[in-house]
């Protein structure tokens, strides 16, 4: 780990002034930044600890239905907030399926959005990686690509964004509130991440010194509460990143799908919302052929970026399963294994 100066600003203004200096990096829970610093992938000269900046740790359930979540709210506290979990059960389920209880106690909302890809070549400073160093090349191509993208990738980068939390958030039209040296602004979460293209490896829409201060869910977010699920396939039952994941939320009216929301995780450099898949479901009655057609639409344009063609079929099947589960209704209680496809009512342990 390189040496750095450590400062703990007392206000947002001080934080942004310090964070705007060259080589500065914001520190929240530290669960991703410290990990990257230990392998010398992140080498900040200055750490600006924003954990105690006042006003960033609130969950506000506003009267008009809007929900505002401060960037410093810990992942576990959001998942366990009774009113929030009731309004957005798929978001709570996604949070509880991520990382471990200890990590969720430390990890923040802002840090979760800003976490880096888990591409093994990104994590290895001796591998060529465009995302770390523009123009260096991409050692993932032709390498171990099991966990890489099947949508929205380019020759410059085939990495995925690993967050679970962001997947249902993208489906719910979440807005990211940003504060920076030039003042405040906001952007939809679906546009916060840019995809790799012919010239760039993709990244986040934050200028130097800019900080995420809050997330805002629009007033209709809770209208999906009774039919909302997040499902996540992983290499082991818990404490593993998604191979593919799917968030599905339905607004049911007299047995008909009045409105649907669908987003995928683990498939692209951003949470992958599919409006075409959502439209396929609109005004339909729950039916497996309809679900299959939505799944086809969600994976439209998917292409393997290496030895990962299996993810396309897997993602389609997961979308079908997630729509089925959402149509059945949100479980009365958070499942014992959040986001798992394994039922735990058989009496046999699903932990494998």
């Amino acid at each position: 780990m390189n040496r750095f100066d450590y400062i703990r600003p007392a206000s947002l203004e001080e934080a942004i002034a310090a964070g705007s200096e060259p080589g500065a990096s914001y520190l929240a829970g530290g669960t991703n930044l410290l990990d990257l610093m230990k392998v010398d992938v992140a080498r900040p000269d200055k750490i600006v600890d924003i954990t105690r900046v006042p006003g960033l740790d609130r969950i506000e359930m506003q009267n008009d239905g809007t929900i505002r979540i401060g960037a410093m709210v810990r992942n576990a506290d959001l998942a366990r907030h009774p009113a929030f979990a009731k309004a957005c059960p798929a978001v709570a389920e996604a949070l509880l399926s991520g990382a471990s209880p200890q990590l969720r106690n430390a990890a923040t909302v802002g840090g979760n959005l800003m976490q880096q890809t888990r591409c093994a070549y990104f994590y290895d400073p001796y591998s060529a990686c465009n995302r770390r160093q523009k123009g260096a090349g991409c050692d993932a191509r032709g390498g171990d690509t099991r966990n890489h993208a099947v949508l929205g990738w380019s020759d410059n980068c085939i990495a995925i964004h690993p967050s679970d939390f962001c997947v249902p958030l993208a489906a719910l039209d979440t807005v990211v509130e940003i504060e920076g040296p030039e003042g405040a602004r906001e952007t939809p979460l679906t546009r916060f991440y840019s995809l790799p293209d012919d010239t760039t490896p993709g990244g986040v829409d934050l200028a130097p010194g800019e900080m995420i201060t809050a997330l805002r869910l629009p007033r209709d977010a809770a209208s999906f509460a009774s039919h909302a699920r997040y499902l996540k396939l992983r290499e082991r039952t818990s404490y593993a990143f998604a191979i593919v994941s799917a968030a599905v939320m339905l607004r049911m009216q007299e047995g008909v799908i009045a409105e649907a929301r669908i987003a995928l995780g683990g498939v692209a450099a951003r949470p992958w919302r599919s409006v075409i898949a959502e439209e396929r479901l609109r005004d339909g009655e729950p039916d497996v052929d309809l679900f299959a057609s939505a799944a086809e639409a969600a994976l439209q344009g998917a292409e393997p970026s290496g030895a990962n063609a299996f993810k396309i079929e897997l993602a389609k099947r997961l979308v079908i399963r997630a729509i089925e589960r959402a149509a059945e209704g949100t479980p009365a209680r958070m499942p014992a294994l959040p986001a798992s496809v394994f039922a735990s009512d058989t009496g046999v342990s699903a932990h494998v």
Partner: protein
Amino acid sequence: MPLSISLTINGDRHDTLLEDARATLLDVLRERVGLTGTKKGCDRGQCGACTILVDGRRINACLTLAASVDGAAITTIEGLARKGELHPVQAAFIENDGFRCGYCTPGQIMSAVGLIAEGDAGDDPERIREGMSGNICRCAAYPGITQAVLDAQRRLANDERISA
């Protein structure tokens, strides 16, 4: 840049001067304060051996900058027993064979204390396994660990009834 931090560890105040800010809470506990009960497994947030409580919440000490928790109250495995009497979670781990080599055990026990305090698992073994999934046991003592947490939970509930 040297920097001084103050931590209340297992009830005692420790003022520590760090040569620079790179020290993790895990390294400060082990190397500076001399409390080696908290273990270093992976040092990367993947195994749970370094689990401790910060202001009552379980976290991984290896991914926490000591400077960032300046002023906090820390509980480590050394702080659980009272007057030579084991904490109910410690006793339950011994009686239920919740370990083999013991390397993961301080982390498992601290994680169990945190899980019980969170109060979400109840007596459902599946919820306990999920709640303990941040702690890897290379010896695979998992069945004993689950039993120990169930047992500890019962003991703590009884204690509460007695002291209430």
